[in-house]
């Protein structure tokens, strides 16, 4: 029983840092570059990914014994795409301004490699409970990283966090010069690279100590 319990905890917690989908598995980078300009869109995107990932994993795991291997991927994509459309419609309904800001990126979660990656490598061979937690864990791991990147980009780029001014910009009578580079997607590359480097180095240092 204890082993089983641990297994559940591990599937939830391992993807947070140790096996983070972005910094360790290097998946889902395109969306991480595109929507990390500010924290608010990153939060919405992260929530969408968590929900879609958890439920796609759950549904696929439930039907994993019935899926014919010849059309397995197509059916998985169908399930993922449906989940994405449902979430997209919900965002359009309850956060229309965010939906306009994120435009196509919610719909593009279909092609986010984290989703198909987890569904194919985990949910196809694990129980529904474990798969759901794995989806949740990977979603949260993705969320942690993009929110961190978005936080850095918004703070340095615009001097705000969640549109709340931290540094007064020059236009508003303060003395903070906005860093326009941080507004460009390329800056996310550099931040992500540094974070990946840092996380990997820290994990390696820990394993060599053991």
């Amino acid at each position: 029983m204890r082993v089983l319990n641990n297994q559940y905890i591990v599937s939830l917690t391992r993807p947070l840092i140790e096996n983070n989908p972005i910094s360790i598995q290097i998946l889902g980078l395109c969306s991480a570059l595109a929507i990390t300009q500010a924290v608010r869109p990153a939060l919405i995107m992260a929530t969408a990914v968590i929900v879609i990932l958890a439920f796609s994993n759950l549904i696929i795991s439930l039907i994993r014994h019935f899926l014919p291997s010849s059309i397995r991927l197509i059916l998985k994509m169908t399930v993922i795409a449906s989940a994405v459309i449902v979430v997209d419609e919900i965002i359009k309904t309850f956060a229309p301004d965010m939906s306009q800001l994120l435009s196509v990126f919610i719909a593009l979660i279909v092609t986010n490699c984290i989703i198909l990656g987890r569904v194919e490598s985990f949910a196809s061979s694990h129980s529904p409970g474990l798969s759901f937690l794995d989806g949740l864990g990977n979603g949260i791991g993705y969320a942690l990283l993009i929110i961190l990147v978005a936080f850095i980009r918004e703070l340095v780029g615009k001097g705000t966090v969640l549109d709340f001014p931290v540094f007064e910009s020059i236009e508003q009578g303060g003395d903070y010069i906005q860093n326009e580079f941080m507004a460009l997607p390329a800056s996310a590359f550099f931040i992500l690279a540094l974070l990946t480097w840092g996380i990997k180095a820290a994990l390696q240092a820990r394993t060599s100590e053991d």
Partner: protein
Amino acid sequence: MQQESLAKTLSIAFIVILFCALLVSSAVVYLRPLQAANEAPLSYRNILEVAGLVGQRTSKTSEEDMLALFQQIETQLLDLNTSRATTQYQHNQLNFRSSSNDPQTSIVIEKKFDKAMIQRRPNKIPVYWVHSDETTTKLVLPIYGKGMWSMIYGYIALEQDLNTISGIGFYEQGDTPGIGEKIQEKRWLAQWQGKKLYDENNELALNVDSKIKKFGEKNFQIDGISGATKTVNGVFNIIHYWFGSQGYRTFLIEHKS
């Protein structure tokens, strides 16, 4: 995954697809009415933006502020068949999108006139007179038509002379992200300001990219967007339909004097 008969494969595929289809369609059907409620405040914002009363999307103007700003706008309902405008009209009383599908409230556009590819044109459409101060008045008009993949919806604001463009904006489109989508960018939209629609003979002379063969005069010329020719052509066609004889032309000429 030992035996995989064709029948089994097909039936599993059918069940999964049926489940997904039910999920998606019920989500869309149940959320549509709630989404429609969102459109009203958004359309206030679009009109105010084009009229230059509020800043671009990034600026934070609360819904109450927008509603207050909207009070200075005089809304009229224009009958496009007679070019007469009625004053007794509340914003959002009429949804011209649904009325353009109803044979009772719209006309079929003959193919050769249907530049904007909208097939039917509503008989009545709301127009907005913006009195930003005592001396200046702008007119905001809805425009729409087909781009490359999708219907493009927007508003155009005219200065007091009803010929000079003061602003234009597209609030809904589904053209290629990152390419055709650029018609919503401030940078591209900014060049419309100050351009003129009609020449001295009241001929529609506004040129987008090089749709009219000879490059027009500077006053009538809008640059295209490289890579988005079809979308930009769509915008040109939309302008030429809505400011042509089936659209606002007569109304504008009558009000100029």
